């Protein structure tokens, strides 16, 4: 039997004590164990940031790439080997600033991977500048007079971009977070999971207590139907994005792999690479 301990390696994270990212790491490890994935069949692809280090702290295949590009790398990997379980993850700057283009288009493309954002509303690694998720008025090193720009609404963006799975969680709620990651990994298509993961060092506003006070759990809302896109959007807007749970899921949608013409059932990386002589002759004939 696989347990979460199988996903632990012997690397000690260099996150600050109390950083929200610890629980995200634990939740991924638990979810993978609960799904009975073996470590070598999991790949975690991460971006750059404090959060980006996560791929180095899980006993699985992992690639820590460049700032904002975890998603295209993860999609390329999944296309190469559709049997792998692929998780992409990174920070709010990684996914919503420098990598925002990839985020939107990955959602549209719907390749069967899971994307987990550790959203701390700040740039941690570069020591405390504003992020697209910082609220207007938020004071940071780069916004000494308070942020002028309004904060980005990732859930609304995801829903309007055509996401087939949108969820949000809070890193202290290990049980809910683990269940959501499991659901995301089981989802056929792209699953987008935003996680409030407080930065205890540089964000003194959006603290654990602040989230506890402001978050509404969808499970507490009577009659909430996560298959209803309009309701999902309305609920998110009503609560200014401060909800947790599975917000929207389209269980019928087909993933990108299902729709690609000629794409085989068995992984591409196991197929014969050499073309037949006959095929080459046929291809050449078209130019004669």
């Amino acid at each position: 039997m696989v347990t979460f301990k199988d996903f632990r390696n012997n690397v000690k994270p260099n996150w600050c004590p109390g950083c929200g990212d610890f629980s995200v790491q634990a939740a991924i490890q638990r979810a993978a164990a609960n799904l009975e994935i073996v470590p070598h069949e999991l790949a975690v692809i991460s971006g750059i940031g404090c959060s980006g280090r996560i791929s180095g702290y899980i006993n699985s295949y992992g690639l820590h790439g460049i700032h904002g590009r975890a998603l295209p790398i993860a999609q390329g990997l999944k296309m190469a080997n559709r049997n792998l379980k692929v998780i992409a993850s990174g920070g709010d700057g990684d996914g919503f600033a420098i990598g925002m283009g990839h985020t939107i288009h990955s959602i549209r493309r719907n390749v069967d991977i899971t994307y987990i954002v550790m959203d701390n509303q700040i740039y941690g690694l570069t020591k405390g500048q504003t992020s697209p998720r910082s609220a207007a008025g938020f004071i940071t090193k780069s916004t000494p007079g308070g942020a002028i720009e309004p904060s980005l609404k990732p859930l609304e963006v995801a829903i309007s971009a055509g996401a087939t799975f949108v969820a949000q969680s809070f890193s202290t709620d290990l049980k809910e977070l683990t269940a959501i990651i499991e659901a995301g990994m089981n989802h056929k298509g792209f699953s987008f999971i935003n996680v409030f993961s407080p930065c205890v060092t540089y964000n003194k506003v959006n603290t654990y207590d602040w989230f506890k006070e402001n978050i509404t759990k969808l499970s507490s809302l009577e009659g909430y139907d996560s298959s209803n896109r309009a309701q999902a959007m309305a609920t998110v807007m009503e609560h200014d994005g401060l909800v947790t749970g599975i917000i929207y899921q389209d269980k019928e949608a087909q993933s990108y792999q299902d729709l690609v013409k000629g794409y085989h059932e068995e992984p591409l990386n196991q197929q014969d690479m050499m073309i037949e002589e006959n095929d080459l002759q046929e291809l050449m004939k078209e130019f004669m």
Partner: protein
Amino acid sequence: MLHQLSWKVGGQQGEGIESTGEIFSTAMNRLGYHLYGYRHFSSRIKGGHTNNKINVRTSVVHTIPDDLDILVAFDQETIDVNYKELTSGGVILADAKFNPEKPEDCPATLYVVPFTEVAAELGTTLMKNMVAIGATAALLNLEDEVFQSVVDEIFGRKGETVVQKNMTAIAQGHVLMNDMLGDRVGAFELEQADGKHRMFMIGNEAIALGALAAGSRIMSAYPITPASEIMEYLIKKLPKFGGTVIQTEDEIAAATMAIGANYGGVRAFTASAGPGLSLMMEAIGLSGMTEQPLVIVDTQRGGPSTGLPTKQEQSDLMAMLYGTHGEIPKVVIAPSTGEEAFYDTIQAFNIAEELQLPVILLSDLQLSLGKQTVEPFDYSKIEIRRGKLELGELPEAEDKAYFKRFEVTEDGVSTRVVPGQKHGIHHVTGVEHDETGKPSEAAGNRKAQMDKRFRKLDHVNFNVPVFKNTPHEEADVLLVGFNSTKGVLEEIQPMLNEEGVKTNHAHIRLIHPFPTEEMKELIGHAKKVIVVENNATGQLANVIKMNISAHEKIISLVKYDGTPFLPKELLGRVKELLTDGNI
């Protein structure tokens, strides 16, 4: 009878000029002639002057000629823009519809032919192209049947009557022209060709076929001139081989997605031009640092910025050699012809996997879009080499001990495993790392890993790094170039020899790591080295100087107005350099 002919058709973009050129050249290809075509076009889709010049020969040709024998004009602009190329024996076949006028200083003969009118009588003015082809047939003394198979292919889907009508248009053009020509009928008759089956294709198609033959099954790309044909070809063909093309949101995604797929064990690549390559630089560095194979095609066009997007230039060289920040091992390959483009693409994939690093396959607009005769590819020469990729069972490791994916080895290459393999778990990061991929900033480790990565460049297994045509042991001049200038250099080499200038020619196919020993030898046996290239700053000349100390011999000859070198023009410039006391 002629051994060579140059023919050009021109008109407004979007008027079917391309198909006129296509039909004529495909028919000539099927007769066994060697062809080299070059399109002049602008960034507009409709409107704007466009022309297609085709060099037809009974022997190998890889260049556009200076002169023009036959100009088919569908508007006055075509005459005004192109008449200077016409020889005194040349002809203009112009559509009567626009009341063509011949400039006073034009030595050629103007024939005003009612292309549009004849076509209209047959039912549609669209067929004016066919009438023009018929008129061309009269000048070349070709049978109309020569065009039958091409017309069948293009119009067959529309039914027998359409095919028939088009053939009638050709026949009428032919008859009409015969009457006008009188005793000049067949004035441009060519010697018979050998009738061999060869391909007629653009360089981009050769590259795409090369990628397919190399076993590449994923291409991630973002459209750009002059690279798009590579993805467009593979979009049609890859699904039959289980693969796919993914059109990404930008070139950063294209390059990084290809890295992800290579990491997963599939040969993946991308293709772009200068602006896209600029966006990919960080990803190229990631490939170098994390030792993930990556093939990137750069079809050079006029830069900088958006530059001259539809014009010839070779100005990305330095950026391809040194574009990424920091220092990574990288291989840069530059094929010159359709044949080389095919085989070198396969070599690029092999080297990328053998050495686990980024390989840039450099092309230029003239090679990528110039349509040329290409000898059928030899299946037996296709070889797939994957180096130290270990896809079999791996030895059991100690609990949680990572696989040494970046093990320091003698040749710098480590055993490569891919996600999904049992006992192969390791980390990959663009941060400096130890042998298992875990981040490490230790000075000793840093040096060991840097040295390991760079050692790989001593083991590049590339067939024919330098193309050589060196008839002289001691030469007066060594001509050097890269990419598509090979054809024009091959053309002027015998001309110079004839004039008593002992001329050798070297075309560099593997630019990085630079074939220093080979080039040193060649340069050592030449009084002067003339480096011919399409850029303003003499980038290849500078690369040679960086590697070989022969600065006093090296003369840079550049052209950067967006047009390719032409043989007579280049010959004149070379001779000028030589009479300037350089020899």
